[in-house]
């Protein structure tokens, strides 16, 4: 295998909310073009890890390098799909307008974010392309409030894609939607992975194992596994108790047997 460049590198990163440690001595190297799954129990530090990489939180110890710089500097080259939308659903905004917001700060000059005025023709084209890519182009004029959970997830994904990010970061993108759409969205991510690095947090290790190359297991500390090496012991170590795994109907799934 060719040696790939480093997209993200964490070295001995620790983080605590007040005196409650969330991450301890976490080291992780993500290569360019990798599709990394992040799993772990609730409150195990998955979302915290993403927010550290996005520069929304700062580590108390250790260093984080994203695309060769500090997280806050690389931020505009990252696309982020949050677990819960951080806006009120009844906000008077159409799908197209919310996707166009992702075009802010995409200019070649950094002060582009301060530039006054309207969106350009190329901004609108990019928004249309992003919506087409997530198969939501028919929703452009709909109000955010009228979308189903799956539709909203596609729109949030389009908003992250419209800035043509080098790294796409998703926090539980399929937590609130049914399984048929879940596999649709992961199929889409698999296609996007051809041109961008993807980090995806999931609670469902069995499901994502059929898509990602490698799984990072986080429960305060972090252990990485290639997806073909995951067995019941790994999961038991991670969650700290015996876990009954449910087999999903996917081909090439290494986890089709049940572990008691």
């Amino acid at each position, binding site marked *: 295998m060719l040696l790939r460049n480093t997209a993200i590198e964490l070295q001995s990163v620790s983080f605590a909310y007040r005196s409650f440690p969330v991450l301890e001595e976490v080291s992780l190297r993500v290569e360019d073009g990798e599709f990394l799954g992040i799993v772990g129990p609730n409150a195990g530090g998955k979302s915290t890890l993403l927010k550290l990489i*996005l520069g*929304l939180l700062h580590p108390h110890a250790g260093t984080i390098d994203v695309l060769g710089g500090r997280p806050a500097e690389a*931020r*505009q080259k*990252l696309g*982020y799909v*949050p677990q819960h*939308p*951080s*806006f009120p659903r009844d*906000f*008077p*905004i*159409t799908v197209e*307008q*919310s996707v*166009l*917001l*992702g075009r*802010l*700060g995409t200019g070649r000059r*950094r002060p582009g*974010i*301060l530039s*006054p*005025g*309207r*969106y350009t023709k190329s901004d609108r084209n990019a928004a249309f392309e992003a919506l087409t890519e997530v*198969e*939501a182009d*028919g*929703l*452009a*004029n*709909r*109000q955010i*409030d*009228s979308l*189903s959970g*799956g*539709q909203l997830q*596609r729109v949030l994904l389009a*908003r992250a894609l419209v*800035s043509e990010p080098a790294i796409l970061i998703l926090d539980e993108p399929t937590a609130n939607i049914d399984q048929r*759409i879940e596999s*649709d969205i992961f199929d889409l991510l698999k296609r996007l992975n051809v041109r961008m690095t993807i980090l995806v947090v999931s609670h469902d290790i069995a499901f994502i194992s059929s898509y990602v190359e490698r799984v990072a297991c986080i429960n305060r500390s972090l252990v990485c596994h290639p997806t073909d090496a995951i067995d019941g012991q790994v999961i038991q170590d991670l969650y700290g108790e015996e876990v009954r795994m449910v087999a999903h109907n996917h081909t090439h799934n290494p986890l089709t047997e049940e572990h008691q």
Partner: protein
Amino acid sequence: MTQFLLALTEHNFLQYALVAGLLASIGCGVMGTYVVVKRIAFIAGGIAHSVLGGMGAAIYFGFDPLTGALGAAVLSALLIGWVRLQLKAHEDTLISALWAIGMAVGILFITKTPGYQSDLMDLLFGNILLVTEESLWFMGALDGLLLIIVGAYHRQFLAVVFDEEFACLRGIPVAFFYLLLLVLVAITVVLLIQVVGLILVLALLTLPAAIAGQYANSLGRMMLLATLIGGVVSISGLALSYEPDLPPGPTIILLVGALYVLSTLLTRFLTHYRIPYPTKRQKRGTSRDE
């Protein structure tokens, strides 16, 4: 009504009042929309009431009360915004304090100024009939400033009021635009005080926008509709109050209040019986996830 129209052609003060109502409705439509969708009505209320402190001080020291009002409004907007952004503290205690302290300071200054007591009611409840030509220019200039800034930075404002976290990730200086937004709200409060006074200003700032929000599916349309509603209620309030010699400010507020109640009932009724009406849900597209 005919008597009002007749008087309108004869009296300068009525024409000024009419223009003042229209100028105020631009501010109330544009900034009221941001106040409603960002849910910062309480901040706007705090700014409005703290203004009395600035007006009282200006009157006592012999300046123009409007200059004092503008200074106090901008100062309290920055203070509230700074507390929220820097200390990450809940700003409601500070807002309540500014609200009351501002009024207390204003009342003290005004009672110590000889011969000004009678105008206190006008400051509190406004008197659109006393608007001078000079204040109209002042209001026009403030409107112009609002429209230029909002016109230039409407995308950044939308990002900040819609989703602060996302705006931050796109590299937008969220703190700067949030503070700028509060300063513009402060300017609007001073604009509207001319028409309805500082006690009633909150209603004119939020209600037209809230009504518009029940029908509009974008901020731009909401602003336009709210401006129209603001203009219509100011003019009709003025006209209605003229014949029975009622104070115009409270008449305008009761009118917009009634309109808000009616509109809320109407939209509830229509949604309940699933009668299609031209609102947010009008445009339906196709998608796989229906």
